[in-house]
């Protein structure tokens, strides 16, 4: 019998332990004494397991992918799943993203696009748009499924972009394609007239609020130093009054995490929390250019422990915000919330599958939202003519956990997917270095503080 190399264990208490296999997705609770015997190889595990073996523990362990009868069984399964995974993902829809402008009207302290406005092409022109629409028409003729059209930036909702935004929304409306808009929300009021006619297609306007007024305005202010909170507050009221789906994103680091309770109190008093068109999510502030954490960015397990201590004071905050911003926990949360299972990840993200086509003012098509403006990473050009750069496409598609040498011995590989490809390019100057997140520490921290809750949820005592 051979143990899977993708199994994670955590002792919740003296009686029960948590087991999770990242290839099969199995999550189980096992008695701690049984786990200790198992790990000490004390079940007299034999290489030839008879079909008649009635050991009440070994059969489910094999069925659920924690153990294998033959040495190469797991490796064969791993490769076979990868082959089928690649076939299945070809059926996933693509997402079109328009970046109407490289310019922004805010100067946020942690912005990763600080130099974007220096690009000589700052706004998407009418000709650019027409060429982009032709490319999308070609995708549709080629039977590509398009799940949504998204507006991104810079800042997409600027006065100078209004005509472009109107044309893009009209295009989405004619093609009956869902719409999302990532915006700072400061000038959303000036776009209400063109948003209302397409509101039934709008999945969300995502607007960032980083805390109560004093905290938000320290981080997200205009070039003149003026805060943006009050204007955003009015605009969210207006969007919700018009029943336009609005999603607040809170970018969290150690500078603002303590103000979450105050922010929650604010949005609750505004009656936003209970509004049917309102949602709110937390997201970590990240710096993909740096391998080390620079304060106020800290290691994930430290941020998680801080968040747990805040949630312990106020359970409503945990129900509202959850722990989804931590990638190592999403599969557990997904399953605890009722999903049947979660597929292993052989890739980190959509950029590895070229599922995003981002049309930018510089005439290039990008596939990673963080890389826009860096034309060395563009996957093609749409203006003044359509051309795809096969070598650049390979930079993104050649990256998976089978190709990353260091991932071959990592138990977290099918959960992780190898980490951010753009970080690999920026930090390591190549596309084949894993960019690891602290999976062990984050999982351990979560189960240390919430493991007993999982036992209670499943009436295990």
């Amino acid at each position, binding site marked *: 019998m051979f143990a899977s190399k993708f199994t994670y264990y955590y002792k919740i208490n003296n009686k029960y332990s948590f087991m999770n296999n990242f290839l099969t997705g*199995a999550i189980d609770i*096992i008695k701690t004494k049984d786990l200790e015997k198992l790990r000490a190889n004390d079940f007299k595990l034999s290489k030839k397991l008879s079909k008649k073996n009635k050991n009440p*523990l070994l059969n*489910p362990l094999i069925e*659920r992918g924690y153990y294998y009868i033959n040495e190469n069984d797991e490796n064969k399964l791993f490769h076979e799943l990868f082959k089928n995974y690649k076939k299945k993902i070809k*059926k996933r829809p693509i997402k079109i993203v328009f970046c109407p402008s490289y310019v922004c009207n805010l100067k946020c302290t942690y912005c990763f696009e600080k130099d974007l406005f220096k690009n000589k092409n700052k706004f998407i022109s009418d000709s650019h748009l027409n060429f982009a629409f032709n490319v999308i028409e070609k995708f549709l003729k080629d039977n590509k499924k398009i799940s949504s059209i998204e507006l991104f930036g810079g800042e997409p909702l600027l006065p100078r972009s209004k005509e472009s935004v109107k044309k893009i929304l009209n295009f989405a409306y004619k093609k009956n394609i869902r719409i999302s808009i990532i915006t700072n929300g400061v000038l959303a009021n000036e776009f209400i007239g063109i948003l209302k006619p397409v509101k039934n297609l709008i999945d969300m306007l995502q607007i960032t609020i980083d805390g109560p007024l004093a905290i938000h305005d320290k981080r997200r202010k205009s070039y003149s130093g003026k805060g943006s909170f009050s204007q955003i507050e009015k605009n969210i009221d207006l969007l919700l009054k018009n029943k336009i789906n609005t999603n607040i994103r809170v970018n969290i680091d150690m500078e603002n995490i303590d103000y979450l309770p105050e922010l929650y109190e604010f949005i609750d008093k505004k009656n936003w929390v209970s509004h049917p068109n309102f949602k709110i999510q937390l997201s970590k502030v990240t710096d993909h250019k740096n391998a080390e954490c620079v304060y106020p960015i800290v290691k994930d397990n430290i941020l998680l422990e801080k968040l747990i201590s805040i949630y312990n004071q106020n359970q409503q905050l945990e129900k509202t915000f959850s722990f989804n911003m931590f990638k190592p926990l999403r599969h557990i949360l997904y399953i605890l919330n*009722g999903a049947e299972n979660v*597929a292993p990840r052989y890739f980190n993200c959509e950029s590895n599958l070229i599922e995003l086509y981002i049309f930018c003012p510089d005439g290039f098509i990008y596939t990673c*939202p963080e890389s826009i403006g860096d034309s060395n990473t563009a996957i093609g050009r749409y203006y003044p003519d359509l051309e795809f750069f096969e070598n650049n496409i390979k930079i993104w598609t050649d990256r998976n956990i089978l190709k990353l040498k260091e991932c071959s011995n990592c138990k977290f590989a099918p959960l992780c997917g190898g980490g*951010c490809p753009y970080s690999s390019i920026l930090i390591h100057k190549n596309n084949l270095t894993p960019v690891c997140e602290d999976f062990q520490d984050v999982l351990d921290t979560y189960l240390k503080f919430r493991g007993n809750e999982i036992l209670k949820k499943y009436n295990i005592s």
Partner: protein
Amino acid sequence: MVNVVIKTLKKDWGEKLKSINDTKKLWNKDKKFKAANFNTSPMCCWFWCIIFGWG
């Protein structure tokens, strides 16, 4: 709505392993994926936190 599923263990499994999810629903006997969320779930850190909430 949270769907709390308590797995009933087969008699010969005893009480040794309590499964939280059903791995048989992830792929069929030919190892072809059949997970319902496979074709739509986002992967990028950007889009996960955006879309997960609308789920």
